[in-house]
Each structure stands twice: as structure tokens, then as C-alpha cells.
């Protein structure tokens, strides 16, 4: 296996151009997501789903100091390619698999549309495309990676807000960036999804945010539904054993 790769999305550099959304759709032949005026600032795609694999959120909020009295946060969201990927864990067909790059990909020729993965994802990323019936999400441009290319969104990003590379390198860079920002007085800068000890055991696509994750529509403490699978089985096993023991005791007692 080659080294694990991922995305570091530095939202302080995002200018909301949505080139990532368009480049993703162009390369991956993702259909349009409907022409709907949502009135959510400049966001008209709404959320990540089967037909939107990169989604730029626009958040208008009152600022603390500047003259205009407003801050406009922009952030390009994407599948997190979790270390502990619940979607993959629950997939009964093996359609979802972990690639040699450490990314999580759906094989569309295997997916049977059971949809187990949809509630399993703690971020609400993976979704079913109607009437196709199968689930779709970001592949981290698996085909481009195989060709030694950068994923389309990162390639198109003009300001290097979306950075692609080996995950360990990105994590180091992100830590440096945060301390740099803190040094400049941007104390609200924080990383999201970079911690290998979190509920998904660290995301392959992580973010530098300027506010709480909820502000961007991200869960504050995502936990893979299968995160405690082994301990759950242990607990279930213990419970089962206890129950069996009790049952046996009851029978024994009855006999006596």
C-alpha cells in the first residue's frame, strides 16, 4: 500500500469560487443537483449528497470588530474518508472498500442500493441517487490518483485552500498553519478532523475552521456508528453469556 493521502482544506484561504464543485462534477460526470434558489447566502447546492461531492458552505455572521460588522465564512466540504469508516463497515456487498491510497470508495458496479451506509455515516455524506438507486460520494478521484494526478477539486482550487497530499505531511502543515494564525491573533483558528483519537479515528479529509464546526454544518463530535463495534460485540457477548447462564440456572433450578 502506498502512503495514505487526503485533503487539508484551509478555510481561511477559501474565496468561495466553487471551482472545486464544478471541477469535481466535470471530472466525475456527476449530474447537476437541481436548479434551486435556496436563499442561503450564495449556497444553492445545500449539502453533500449523491450529486454534490464537494459543497461550499457560505456562512454570514456578525463580526466582532470590522467596520462592516459582518464576517462571511466559506468552506468547501467533502467526504472525510474516515480511518474508521462506518459506511464501509456496514456495506454487505463489499462495494465500499478502502483503496491502496487509504481512501474510501464505492464501486458502482457492485453497489446493490441497500442503503445501509447512509445512516451509518456520521457526517451525512453518502446518499442515494434517484432513480439510479445506488449510492454515490467522493472517490478522492481514485482514477486520477491511479494516474499520479491530483484530485480535480484540489487541482482547480486557485488559492490552495484545498491541499492534497500524504496525510502525515498535511497534518504537519496544518498544525504549523494553526500556530501561525494564532501568532497573527486569529485565535479562533482550529483544526477539525485531524485527531486520530476522535470518533472516526481521524479523517482523511480534515479542515482548518474559524468557528465551531456546527457553524459550518459539521457535527461537533462525529462518531462512526461502528466505532464501538468490537466492544459492543464484547458487551453483547457478555450479556448473551450471562443470559445463557441465567437460563441454564433457571432450567437447573426447575429440575431441582
Amino acid at each position, binding site marked *: 500500500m502506498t502512503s495514505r493521502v487526503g485533503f487539508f482544506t484551509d478555510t481561511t484561504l477559501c*474565496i468561495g469560487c466553487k471551482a472545486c*464543485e464544478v471541477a469535481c462534477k466535470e471530472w466525475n460526470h456527476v449530474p447537476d443537483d437541481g436548479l*434551486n434558489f435556496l436563499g442561503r447566502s450564495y449556497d444553492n447546492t445545500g449539502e453533500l449528497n449523491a450529486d454534490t461531492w464537494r459543497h461550499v458552505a457560505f456562512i*454570514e455572521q456578525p463580526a466582532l470588530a470590522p467596520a462592516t460588522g459582518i464576517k462571511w465564512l466559506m468552506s468547501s466540504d467533502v467526504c472525510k474518508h474516515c480511518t474508521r469508516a462506518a459506511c464501509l463497515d456496514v456495506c454487505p456487498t463489499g462495494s465500499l472498500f478502502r483503496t491502496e491510497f487509504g481512501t474510501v470508495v464505492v464501486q458502482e458496479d457492485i453497489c446493490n442500493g441497500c442503503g445501509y451506509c447512509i445512516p451509518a455515516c456520521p457526517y451525512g455524506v453518502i446518499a442515494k441517487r434517484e432513480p439510479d438507486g445506488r449510492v454515490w460520494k467522493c472517490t478522492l478521484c481514485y482514477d486520477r490518483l491511479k494516474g499520479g494526478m491530483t484530485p480535480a477539486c484540489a487541482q482547480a482550487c*486557485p488559492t490552495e485552500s484545498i491541499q492534497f497530499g500524504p496525510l502525515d505531511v498535511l497534518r504537519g502543515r496544518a498544525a504549523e498553519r494553526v500556530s501561525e494564525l494564532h501568532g497573527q491573533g486569529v485565535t479562533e483558528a482550529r483544526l477539525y478532523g485531524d485527531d486520530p483519537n476522535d470518533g472516526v479515528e481521524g479523517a482523511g479529509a480534515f479542515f482548518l475552521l474559524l468557528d465551531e464546526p456546527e457553524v459550518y454544518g459539521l457535527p461537533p463530535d462525529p462518531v462512526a456508528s461502528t466505532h464501538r463495534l468490537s466492544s459492543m460485540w464484547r458487551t453483547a457477548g457478555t450479556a448473551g453469556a450471562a443470559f445463557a447462564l441465567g437460563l441454564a440456572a433457571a432450567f437447573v433450578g426447575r429440575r431441582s
Partner: protein
Amino acid sequence: MGTSFGRGGATTFQQDLANSDCIIIQGSNMAECHPVGFQWVMEAKARGAKIIHVDPRFTRTGAVADLHVPLRAGSDIAFLGGIVNYILEHGREFREYVVPYTNASSVVGESFRDTEDLDGFFSGWNAEDGYYEADTWQFEGNEVERDADNPKEVAVGEAHGHGSKLSGGRAPITDPTLEHPRCVFQILKRHYARYTPEMVEEVCGVPRDLFVEVAETLCQNSGRERTSAFCYAVGWTQHTVGVQYIRTAAIIQLLLGNIGRPGGGILALRGHASIQGSTDIPTLYNVLPGYMPMAHVEQNETLEQYLEMNGSPSGFWGHLPAYFVSLLKAWWGDAATSDNDFCFDWLPRISGDHSAYQTALDMLDGKVKGYFVVGENPAVGSSHSGLHRKALANLEWLVVRDFVEIESASFWYDAPEIETGELRTADIGTEVFLLPAAAHTEKDGTFTNTQRLLQWHHKAVEPIGDQRSELWFYYHLGRIIREKLAGSTDPRDASILSLTWEYPTEGPHDDPRADAVLAEINGFDAEGKPLSAYTEMKGDGSTRGGCWIYTGCYAGGVNQTARRKSGKDQDWVAAEWAWAWPANRRIIYNRASADPDGQPWSERKKYVWWDEAQGKWTGYDVPDFTPDMRPDYVPPPDAKAEMALRGDEPFVLQGDGRGWLYVPAGLLDGPLPTHYEPHESPFTNPLYSQNASPLRQRFARGANPYNPSAPDPGADAYPYVFTTYRLTEHHTAGGMSRHLPYLSELQPEFFCEVSPELADERGLEHGGWATIVTSRAAIEARVLVTERIVPLTVQGRTVHQVGLPYHWGTKGLSTGDSANDLLPLALDPNVHIQEAKASSCDIRPGRRPRGRERAELVESYPSVEKGREQ
């Protein structure tokens, strides 16, 4: 730019913004409209530069700027004039730069009177005919060349990208102490003395402290060690005083010593691919390639007259005969000889304003029979689009070349005027020829981008079906016309039959070779070898070249524009990436990056300098100067052209080699920028009793009504200011984006941006509909209520601004009303550009009426024929 510095192009390049210590983006929404170039602003920010965005709206640019300054649309000259005043009042000018490199020391004649003296007018105003006689603007002791029969036509400088014309170039009397009461420096001081922070607050609605913060930040980041840049786009040009907006920035940058130096400059951001190219080799009626003026029917009867009128005794325009004769030789080849004035008589002549807007009015009057629309969509993209649709409906034939059926081709059945009953399909006689165009991926050629950079693109695929390149279309059109005329002895056909029209063709569709055309533009010497520099051009007919400023792009017979050496393999200037005019220079006037003695102003801002050992100029860029002219060179009295400039005069296209703070000739509307209100405004001018520019170009006729402006009766029917703009997600008039699902879904509907306060005042509901009304049109838009639009306090009262992206029309996946329907035809007199960025309107809740009632709503609003007189 042309009149201030000598050339009509950005003075710097986008990558150089990374070297700036402060960047002021004003009149541009750079992050949204130039997202790729904006990476260099982000790079500067990462290196510690201050980014300031001055704009009516808090945009995606404002979101990442250090400081956003909201101001009232149409008030920028007051803001920038305030900065000029701040610099002069506090002695913040870079004096060692200003004295030798600008015309600050030039002494103006005694008869000049300023707008401060004449309440909003300069001396020389001819009230009867409504124009300025520029005689009194001249430097003391200068003669004025003026054609008594055509006084209005004297001022041609800005349109032609240079201000050196006329003997107004070099001032006979100068005062290097800058103390003479009539020297430019002192005139500037008096002119802007009332542009105080308090006045800026009153005119622009910018709190005085915020204004001072901008001015101070700019001053602190200018000088020997530091440089600041300005970025602007059509937010500055699209005003009745648009040229003067840019002039004000030029004055600031000259006073602070920020021109010709790394990290400095004024970056004119061009709206889309090759717009710079379309003025270099122009699609304008009054300019020939390389910013040479088009010949005038009365003033230029002979070649000699033309060269005499448009040349210059000093500076590089002193070689006009070489540039011009080479152009005539490129067009007419062997037929052009010195005996026939190189076919000068075959050049078409202009007799007045034949600009796009005048032509549309001429169509309405039935004076124009046929029209080509290429790379344009006037039915959506032009001011007062409804007037354009009616004009197109009055043609005999119309050719539209585009990727899709755009509104300028479909107006005859789906224009809004069909629904209102103003037009009837059965009555429209225009025969429309819609021809499919090839995309840039389907053809070879160059783009000339915002920084004067010619970049070659190779054909990736053959165009599908009947799609053809423009080059294919015009080449074969010309070929067929020439075949039809072959053998004609009619003198009027001789000019067409004698054109050089031989280009090699290739491919299944006989495409003319684009590189052969580029080689022709570059030019050839007498032996047919490619020229390597415009300095090799000659006026005797021995050289040919289609655009003198592009000479060198095919030097050595190599397509220099196709160079793609990686940035990793060369220094940051990247001189081997493509090719920039002139002579592959990336920062122009770069002699000014060195002091008068030829040494860098500072180590930190080192760029081009004099190398005494080698006896020539050297540095990171191609020196924009005579290569071996010593810094202490003083021209002998009989010197000509560039040799008539001193070794410390960096603006080599200007007759005096200086940057022009004051423009004695070349502009119709005055030597100094002055704040005037927009043509349509709910406010009066607090500076002068003359409210709007006296010289703004208006078209008084029924088809083009105007909103009454303050203080005239009826002005209160239009209490709000609106501005039009683009979004990242769409392309101009929409032909290239509204038909694509991936772009349409990102901004699927036409919307207006309003503040919560305005929404409350007018009962506008977020996500609902609003109707916006001017005396031209009533249109509807979805409502986006946002705190990014802030109400401003101007002249003691609250003003609300309405933001309107202008991309929509009737065709495509995403459709909607056209914001440009609202705009008036009111233009800058120098360049005939429309005032699209500041106007007045009303806004009301709900959708607009349908059918005839829509027209009735517009008619119920007050209108006037000429707009306010003052």
C-alpha cells in the same frame, strides 16, 4: 492610464502583487471576477501585506480582506481625491520620485481656472455647444494646436492610450521646489483641499476615521522601502467620469512613487479572455492596432497631416511614421508605396461618434441595415438592453456568432417587449443568421490577458459540426468577397482586392494558420525576416507589421507566445512564460524602480538599475528604457523621439518622459479628476453646484428616458442607488454559463441583494420577489436579504443600495429578467463607456406585472428627456 503614463495597459502583472505591502482593491470584486489571479493577493496577504477592499458591497473579496470599506456607488473620486488631499496635506508624497518623474513641477499658464474657482467647471467651457476648449489648460509658454473647425475632436488621448500628443507635452517652465503657485503640485493641492475626511464622509458615506485608516495604511506602505498597488476593473470604468476615476488613482500612485516598481502599480483587471487584446488590436471604431488613432475624415486628408497631428517630437511616439507605415504595408503589401502615401486614402475615416451605443440608436433610426454580433450579447449585456432589442428588430439582417442561441439571436420571438406588446414578431423584418462558433479548445490562437501577456493556446479537438473559429469565418468571408470582386475595375473595390489576404490553411476545414497571422502582426523586415523589436520598424515602407506594440512576439521566427517554461525553472518574473507587450516587459515604466542616478530606491524594492560597468540598464525585467542611455544623459537641442528625453525620465511614451499628475491635453472633461454625481442620483453634489459631469454624453430622445435626479422634481420616485455586477458562477451576459447545468445550479436565479433595513422599509421578503423600477424598465428578482449590504449615511440621511447581478435573460437553463434593462444610456465622453455601476431606482415587493401592465408601471414613474442640466 494612457494619458497619465503613456500606455493603455496595466502597469504591472498579477504575480507581482505578491510583492505588495498594501493592495487596495476598489472598483473590482477581484476574488469573484478574477479568482485565479486573486491567488497573488492571497500570497501577498500571507507575506503580511494589508488587503483593503473599498466597495459598496461586502463581497467574497471583502470576506478575505483585512479591511472592507463600504462606500456609496459613484462616489469614488471623492474618496480617492480625499487620499490625494491626505498625502499633500501631510507631506506624505515621495518627493525624490515626484520631482524628477512626474509633471508636478510644470508651470501652468495664467489663464487656467480650476473647478474650485468656477464652481465645478474648468476654464474654457463653451456653454453654448457643451464642450471644453483646452487652450487655457496648457503649460505656460506652450502653443496649442487646435483645429478651429473641429474643436471637440482635439482630445483623443485616453481612447488612444497615450497623452503625449500636442506640444502640451513638455512644460517650458518648471519649478523643482514645487513652490510656484501655478506649478502642477500647488494646483493639485488647491484642487483637492476641500476633499477632507469630513467631505469624504458626507459624499461617500465612509466614516472619517475609517477613511483615514485607509489613507494612512496606504502612505505607510509606500516610499523607498515599501510599495502599494491598486487593482480596479469595470467598477471604475463604467461611469460617466470613469476615465477620471482611474486618473485619480494614477495621481495617488505617482505621488507615492508606486509606478514602475515591484509591488506597486495599477492593475487594470480585464473582464474576460483577451479583452486587453481587443483594445490592443482593437474592436473599437476609433483606434487602429497599437493605439494609433483612426484617421478622421476632415483632419487627416493626407498621410502627412495624420502623422503630424498624432505624432510627438519626443518620446517613443516620435516614431509614429514607422509604426503606422508598417501597418499600412502589412495590410496592403506591395500596393502600398511612398508614391501613393502607402494607400492611406484606402483607410476608412471616422466623422464622429460611431461607438456601439450610437450605432444602436442609428439602428432605431433605420440608418444601419446589417450588423454582426460576435462575442457580445447586447440584448442582455448592454445598458438599456430593451433599447438594443428594439434596435436589432429594426435591421434588415443580423449575423450572430456564438456557442448557443443567445438572446441577441432570439429577441424576435422571446424579447420581453413581445409580451408587453411593444414589439410583434410579425412586424420584425430582421433576418437573423445564427452561426455556431468554435470554442478556444477547438482552435489555435492567442489570448492577451489582463497583464498584456500574449498566451498561445493549441487546438485540442476539431470543432464539431458547423462550428468554426472566428479566424476561419473572417478569412473565408474575405476570400469569397474578393473572389466575387475579382476583375473589378471599380476604384472602390481596389482597397479590398489589394489587401494581403494570403494565409496558409490546414485541416479538414481549411483553417487559416493562426501562427501565420501572428507572424504578420509581429512584422517582417525588407528581406522578409521576422522583426525582433518595434525599434526596427521604419517609416520608408521597408518593414511591415500589424501591431507595433506586439512586435517581438514572433522574434527569430519563433512563436514566443507559446513558451511555457515552468515557474520552477526560472525566477519569479518568469520572463520565459509566454510573451508580454511591449518587448516582453512585465512591469512597464520600470526605469522608475531606480532613482534618478540609476540605483535601486532600496534593496528590498530592487528591480531594474543602471550597470555602470556594462554601460547599460539591467535587472530582473526587460528595462523599459533606451538600453544604453546613461542616467545623466541630457538631450542635445536637436534630439528627436526617445533621444529627446533625459536619462532620468522614465515615462518614455510621454512627450516629457514624466508621469502626468495634470493632463493638459488628451481628455475632454478636464485636466484633473473632480467629483461629480452620477448621471442619475438621489443626491446633489456637496462640492459644487454643478452636480453631474457637464460633459457626460447623453442621448436626449424618447427611446432613452432618464430618471429625474436630485434636486429636480420627481427624483424622490427613485430614492435608492443600485449597482450591477457579476458573480463568479456566471459569465457576463450568460451565453457561456446559463446553458451549462454545472454553473446554472450554483446561481440558478436572478436575485437582488438588499439590506435587512431596506427589506423592512419596503416589505421585501427574503426568498420572495421584488420588482425594481427605473424610467426604462421594471424587472423582477428573487430577494436575498443580507447584512453584507449596509445602509450608509450620506449628507445626513440614510441611503440604501441595491445589488443586481446582470447575467440573466430569456434563454438557457437558468432564466430571468435582465438587470441591464434598468440602465440609462449615459456615457463617459472620452471612451463612450456606459454608466452601469451607479444609478437610481425604486424597489417594491412582489413580482412585476405581466403584459401591457408592465409597460404601464414604468410609464407611471416620472422621466425626463435630458436628465438634470447641472
